[in-house]
């Protein structure tokens, strides 16, 4: 089940930003990530799901050490992540890479893609310069591009081919960890399938651990071995993708699952009231309570802790743990 145990562990990550309200307003503290712990296993994928502003991308950057957490720690192969900018950190960067949502924005438009794929090898001084072109060719083949396409510029490639080029560049240093931040959401449906298949192939071939950040639960199920659902900077539920998708325990996960539009969906959709709250204006108690159809007054006072249920599923919800009886929402508004 576990090809090699934990490769990367994050504990209690907190990332705060200061945001000024208005021109003369005082700075408000925004907690983008508010105590996130997660574990990446060797050769496995953790899916991180949530809506915009829930802190999933910030979590991805913290995990990579591209930003330092204000609290908490990230350890890679048992050792704490070194300070950004240090020699040790730079060395580690070669082992951890990131794939972004918009491949055109992530590529340099003025360089042919083969040059860009070779760049990490130059930066990290990996391999001899004479082997470079052979290595680039092998990388292009691994992501399903032809070696002659290496001479093309990003604008000469289709969206799917560009994302393949971004993946080839990320794989150049033979990384142990790949953080994919919404790698398919900018692509067409048929191309999304190609990239998801490619990610699975690459993982099988290279044994890469992946953090797959997405808002798309179906895509997460397709590529992940575990899934964590985030809401307003915290993980609210974590478990096996199938278990979470078919029997979501947290009311927010239930709403997310029921919002997936698909044919053959039966029954009434659970439509949440209102918008995701502003992280600068975090509701008291459980951050989800103003939108929650089963919240009661206790939920508005006490923040639930993420803890395992009897079957091992991690849930942060008073109601799901049976600590309080289900209410009818705490805003007085009846949820649909």
């Amino acid at each position, binding site marked *: 089940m576990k090809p090699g145990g934990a490769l990367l562990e994050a504990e209690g990550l907190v990332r705060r930003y200061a945001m000024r309200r208005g021109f003369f307003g005082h700075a408000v503290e925004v907690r983008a990530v508010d105590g996130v712990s997660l574990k990446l296993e060797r050769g496995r994928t953790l899916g991180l799901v949530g809506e915009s502003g829930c802190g999933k991308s910030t979590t991805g950057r913290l995990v990579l050490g591209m930003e330092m957490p204000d609290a908490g720690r990230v350890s890679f192969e048992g050792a704490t992540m070194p300070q950004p900018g240090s020699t040790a950190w730079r060395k580690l960067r070669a082992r951890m890479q990131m794939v972004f949502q918009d491949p055109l924005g992530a590529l340099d438009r003025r360089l042919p893609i083969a040059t860009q794929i070779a760049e990490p090898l130059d930066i990290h001084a990996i391999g001899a310069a004479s082997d470079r072109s052979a290595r680039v060719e092998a990388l292009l083949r691994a992501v399903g591009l032809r070696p002659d396409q290496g001479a093309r510029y990003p604008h000469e490639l289709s969206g799917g081919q560009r994302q393949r080029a971004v993946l080839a560049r990320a794989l150049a240093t033979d990384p142990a960890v790949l953080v994919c931040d919404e790698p398919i959401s900018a692509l067409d449906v048929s191309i999304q399938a190609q990239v998801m298949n490619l990610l699975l192939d690459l993982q099988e071939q290279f044994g890469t651990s992946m953090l797959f950040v997405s808002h798309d639960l*179906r895509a997460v199920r397709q590529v992940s071995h575990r899934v964590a659902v985030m809401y307003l900077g915290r993980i609210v539920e974590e478990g096996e993708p199938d278990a979470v998708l078919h029997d979501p325990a947290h009311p927010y996960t239930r709403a997310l699952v029921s919002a997936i539009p698909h044919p053959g969906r039966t029954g009434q959709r659970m439509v949440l009231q209102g918008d995701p709250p502003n992280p600068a204006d975090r509701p008291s108690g459980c951050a989800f309570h103003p939108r929650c159809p089963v919240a009661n007054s206790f939920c508005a006072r006490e923040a639930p802790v993420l803890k395992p249920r009897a079957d091992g599923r991690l849930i942060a919800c008073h109601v799901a743990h049976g600590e309080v009886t289900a209410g009818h929402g705490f805003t007085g508004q009846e949820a649909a």
Partner: protein
Amino acid sequence: MPLVSLTGLSVAFDGAPALRGIDLSVAKGEAVGLVGESGCGKSVTWLAALGLLPNKARISGSVVLDGQELIGAPPAILEKVRGGRIAMIFQDPASSLNPVHRIGKQITEALALHRNMVGQAARSEAKRLLDLVGIPDASRRLDAYPHELSGGQNQRVMIAIALAGQPELLVADEPTTALDVTIQAQILELLKDLRRHMGMTLVLISHDLGVVADSCERVAVMYAGRIVEEAPISRLFSAAAHPYTQGLLGALPPMDGPRRRLAAIPGGVPEPWAMPPGCAFAPRCAHRVAACDAGVPGLIPLAASHRVACLQVAQVAMPRESVPA
């Protein structure tokens, strides 16, 4: 009689075809989905119908709304149709709204234009419309600027503005693509409610078959500027006949069952200036034969209101066993 019929609608930009003969009719009160990947022409179809394309676009064919031809119609007629009889909402509400004007002003502007309403009457109608699209505290929100509202609320405002002209047809172009999943669910429910209460005709343009399945009765699948399959929604999911439609369905990750490799369609969409000689899908198609390159296949009826444009369809129309969901 259909509300709108498109016949042989073609559009070309600088000699490169974007639409290559669209035949589609929409009946009163119907909800039709238009599905396809980027660049297939699903948005261009309605921009062309409303005369909203730049001058360099070469348009031919016909778009008839209630007996009135719209292609080449004088501006005075098109101005009455746009917003008044056919309204359109777009993917990104934030860039469709004017950032320096209050919400109320933008709604009353549409009311003045289409219904000659001004002053207090317009303001109270604007408030009614905001209530209708489910914006809480409507009277105060009239004085808000778009940046003070969330993406979902801005899309509701766009819908309110579209409804201001009391259109018979609402064309929603990827109305939920820029929104979060839970907000997408809210907007789709809103569109459904509006249709139920106002009997409005809806054309929903989307790249997401799931979204269309949820809101429409009939769907047309487009590929490279043509409709390749048209069917009632349930039939499309149970008996998709065109290899491209089958490919789109196979590319959706399933929600249950064993995790299988996705049936990705190989290759990419052809460029408009390098269209294949015959069927545009042939280069990516697993069922391609020599005849596919000989000519562009037309839509042929397969069953009641199920039409498909594929030469091989008799051989390849294998009803799909289950709904991949």
